[in-house]
């Protein structure tokens, strides 16, 4: 990754009168942590980084902005937001365009072709956690960890995030500025997590998810981080009627998780954020990837690729494969 090019482009973008801020990644407060950053002026661009630790999908911030009532006579700030995206993240942008959650003229997409990012928990497990500032870089086929002057080569498969093993679109599918050259695609691994569950019988799957959903603490981190969970009036927050009780137990937790899965069918772009942030370590990716697989195989549809596409759940094609309808 060409940091110089990134910062130069970013500086040009934030200097524009019609740009509010740029959302990117910066070094976090310690160790391996990386944090989202909102850059408002050219001075701020020095903080920007793009590294294998930039796992977070920042697209969620496009719809997370709170729209508070404006004082009389004050106009809303209609300036554009610039956003750094990897391949997977860019699909969220496209999907938002498809759903008219955002409009094309509202965003400037800074595309970062992505060789694959690190799963921080694997990194911690294998190389230990640290409070010292460290760096993780792409290094040939794998990664390089720079810690206390020491350079440690890490084989790609050892710490690569699961979403990246399965990734089919490492290059941004939409961008206004592309930073560096596109990366060569790799052949996505077989999604063994989903296949193994598929191979179980109904009782086996139920048992598996019962154990998982029992752990849920309903913090809604998964929902809030998801770039495509952006309903203004989410059923989870409704009290009248109460669709899902606030009580935390298997039944309500399951109702919540299943609703979320359905609401994302044909919309989830597999960025893996929900699973990454879940403090209860629930393998949410398996649910969403299973739904995505169904939609792909049964309807031949993949979300987040074509801004002109019709939304999956709102479209009907007479020539759908629909083999499963009796």
């Amino acid at each position: 990754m060409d940091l110089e090019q990134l910062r130069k482009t970013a500086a040009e973008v934030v200097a524009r009168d019609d740009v509010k801020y740029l959302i990117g990644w910066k070094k976090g407060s310690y160790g391996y942590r990386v944090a989202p950053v909102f850059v408002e002026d050219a001075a701020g661009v020095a903080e920007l980084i793009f590294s294998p630790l930039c796992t977070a999908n920042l697209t969620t911030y496009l719809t997370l902005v709170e729209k508070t009532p404006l004082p009389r006579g004050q106009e809303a700030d209609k300036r554009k937001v610039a956003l750094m995206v990897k391949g997977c993240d860019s699909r969220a942008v496209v999907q938002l365009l498809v759903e008219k959650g955002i409009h094309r003229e509202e965003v400037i997409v800074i595309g970062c072709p992505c060789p694959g990012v690190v799963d921080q928990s694997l990194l911690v497990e294998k190389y230990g956690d640290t409070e010292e500032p460290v760096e993780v870089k792409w290094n040939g086929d794998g990664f390089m960890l720079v810690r206390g002057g020491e350079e440690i080569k890490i084989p790609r498969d050892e710490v690569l995030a699961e979403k990246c093993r399965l990734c089919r679109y490492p290059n941004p599918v939409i961008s206004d500025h592309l930073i560096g050259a596109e990366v060569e695609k790799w052949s996505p691994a077989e999604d063994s997590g989903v296949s193994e569950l598929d191979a179980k019988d109904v009782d086996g799957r139920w048992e598996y998810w019962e154990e998982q959903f029992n752990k849920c603490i309903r913090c809604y981190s998964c929902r809030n981080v998801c770039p495509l969970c952006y309903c203004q009036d989410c059923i989870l927050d409704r009290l009248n009627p109460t669709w899902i009780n606030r009580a935390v137990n298997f039944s309500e937790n399951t109702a919540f998780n299943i609703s979320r899965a359905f609401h994302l069918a044909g919309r989830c772009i597999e960025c893996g954020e929900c699973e990454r942030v879940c403090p209860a370590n629930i393998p949410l990716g398996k649910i969403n990837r299973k739904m995505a697989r169904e939609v792909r195989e049964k309807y031949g549809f993949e979300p987040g690729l074509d801004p002109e596409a019709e939304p999956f759940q709102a479209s009907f094609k007479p020539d759908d494969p629909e083999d499963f309808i009796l």
Partner: protein
Amino acid sequence: MSAMLLNKEKWPEFVKKLTGKNLWAPKLDGEAMRFAPVAEGEEVSLDYGNTRVPPKGATFPQTETMYRFLVGNMEIEEPKMDEELVLLGVRPCDARAMKIIEKLFRWDYDDPYYLKRRELVTLVGLACTEPGLNCFCSSVGGAPDSSEGLDLLIYDLGDRFLLEAVTVKGETLIAETKELLTDSDASAVKAKDKLMADAGAKIRRTVDHDGIPEGLPGLWEDPLWKSVSASCIGCGTCTYLCPTCHCFDIQDEVEGFEGRRCRMWDSCMFEEYTLHTSGHNTRPTRRERTRNRINHKYNYFVDKFDVIACVGCGRCINLCPVNIDIVEILRRVKEAL
């Protein structure tokens, strides 16, 4: 209060004795997730940092049934709350947290649910020998061997455990397991002192809160709040997993004619937390919500109860999905004073 030694060979037997008592211990599943019931004969390992989910649910369950009712019927049925509970392996910060929030539940009104559960629970602590990366208990009045809130404190001396009773409940546990224990001696005390001095020295993160409680009101409109909360996604992670967060909501759940009134954890980081029926929200953005989280712990609580409502367990730092770091926020607050 007595201090006794337990040879590690006798540990399984010790645990077995306690399982007769509705015993909960950290459930290790790769890492320690939470406290869960220990079945008879199940092994308990105390080889863990701290649980992701704090044990606060033992006294303040995420969902507490206050009473049950039948729609159209004036009678209510109160749940029975009489089962004793022993928590084994509670970290000192989490026990301190229970003591801290007890002040709230005893404030203008004695909360029957919290206080009853508090009475029924026995907290067997485990002194920390390897503080976590983001632990800062010693900056906020705690320590790796703080016994505040605990009934009994266990020190891991390598081949044996040193058990120190802190309360009468702790004494009772010692009396009940007496045949497995031997008297403590000077060498054990010396080993413990050394161990704890080392543990204290291993704490890496610090907070200098001097002047913060009094200074926070003056920073109400400071630009720092916008900047520290810009990336917050407004989830429940930092509050649900905080051992001192104690906000709740009360709701009725009705199915057919059967209903129950329950209280559940709530979080000031949620949008609807301060949403009025009128549609007005007194904390309309994550800026106000983050400001509240810090003020509640480092100002309001200090003002009312003379203690900081943060025990420095580090969970909110470890698990925030976007690296919002309370130590960093407090450093910024201090700078702005």
